């Protein structure tokens, strides 16, 4: 597996406690890597379970949980984005289910997905300020009420 994927600039590879492979890929080639996983016969990743973001102290970590329905294999692809200017490629053209996930991450973490057709806030009102799930979100400061005109 390692020889085949060497072209994709894999940064780190580990197995988590519950036995799931976790591959950290460089930001520039992660989309190529995912589309390779989706189409290759070795790992037919036909379901994108969910996209999870996590705010570590120095970067925002995006976890793409892939699942192969035929081979019953589970894989996590991790991408690290810059915390000050979080930008990432969208995967909505590969998996349609990513649309809401990416909107949610844009809402909660402020990660900007390039190529997403409708990147607006999903859960919070459009007029709200700040990204609540970031660790340095200030409750008191940004808690003021903003009402939308369009219900």
């Amino acid at each position, binding site marked *: 597996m390692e020889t085949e994927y060497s072209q994709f600039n894999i940064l780190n590879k580990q197995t988590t406690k519950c036995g799931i492979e976790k591959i950290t890929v460089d930001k520039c080639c992660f989309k190529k890597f995912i589309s390779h996983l989706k189409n290759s016969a070795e790992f037919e990743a036909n*379901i994108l379970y*969910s996209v999870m973001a996590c705010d570590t102290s120095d970067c925002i970590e995006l976890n793409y949980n892939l699942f192969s329905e035929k081979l019953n294999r589970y894989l996590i692809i991790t991408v690290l984005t810059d915390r000050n200017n979080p930008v990432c490629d969208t995967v909505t053209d590969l998996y*349609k289910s990513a649309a809401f996930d990416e909107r949610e991450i844009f809402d*909660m973490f402020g990660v900007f997905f390039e190529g997403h057709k409708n990147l607006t806030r999903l*859960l919070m009102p459009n007029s709200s300020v700040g990204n609540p799930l970031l660790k340095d979100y200030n409750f008191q400061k940004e808690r003021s009420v903003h009402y939308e005109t369009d*219900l």
Partner: protein
Amino acid sequence: MKPICDSDMIINIGPQSPALYGSMKLAIKLNGEIIKSVESVIGYNHRGIEKLAESLTYLQYLPVVNKIDYLSGFMYMEAYCSAVEKLCDINVPERAQYIRVMLMELNRISSHLFYLGVYLSDLGSKAQFYFAFTLRDEILHILQDICGQKIMQNYFVFGGVKHDLDLNALNKICDFCSSFSQKVKELENLIIDNPAFKARTKGLGIITKNKALSYSLTGANLRSAGINLDIRKIKPYLVYDALEFQVPIDDSGDCFSRCLLRIREMIESLKIIRQCSRFLIKSSGEYKNNDVNPLQIHPQSNTVISHVESPRGIISCTIISDGSDKPSRVKWRTPSLYSIQILPELLKNRYYSDITAIVGSLDIVVSEADR
């Protein structure tokens, strides 16, 4: 007065609409009775449950968990408990596992009954609603006897359950099983053999295999498209590998088959409950891992994922711990979020009156999607 024809009419269903039990908005562009485009807006019930985890300890977060979805509280409890158990290497005694499985299956039946009742009442027929809700109430009363609460049961704890099931409760469940197997047939007659119901739902809202996979649908919605994916079978948790049951599957992918599969699933769940109650009556043992002190959970920094098959699809709970007594991040994968995404595609170029038939059949709980 607006002109009636010529232009498209924009109609907003929701956020508080008679058709949807939960706050979701569907902004629909209509041309006559035909839907041109749909946009779904959610988040009206976003309570910040993921952020809440960061300020609570592992035990304090436990009662919040089952408020994500009011129809399948046990499933969410199980997902969270098993994630924490994996994190801290806690093992669950066999008896506790059987109790958990049995209660989860009871919960699955009650959730499906709610779905059937509400779906049929949305379509305009009330007899089935009353029938299904009377049955659901029986289950909820059994759960109330066991756990002390009707819907928000805080019964699971890390390493087992809160207290043991007594013989009285088990007998009640056995009685319920014997009466329910007859009644579910009656319900099937009322719903599946109903000509008007068939006329409304057959061949409507068809989800193909590829579409279902690409939208990441799970549960009965995916199985009705002909893909056999059930976490209980492919990656058994608790004691599901020791139990005998089948996963009903269909390949037409329309609203009718989604409804049919849920009735079949109830019958399979009944089988599981019977096996569990047989085991629980015979055996005795610990209902709880006594080594665990739930007040002092300090896992090392790690990432765990647990999957549970809920009535609506696959729930997964991801916990990232950083060595303190509070989780650093908890992420919930909720199946309803993905069911909502597929709505614009299913509703396009359909009649306005098909909205209730399609939205209802997907079994969407909006508060689950919003978190």
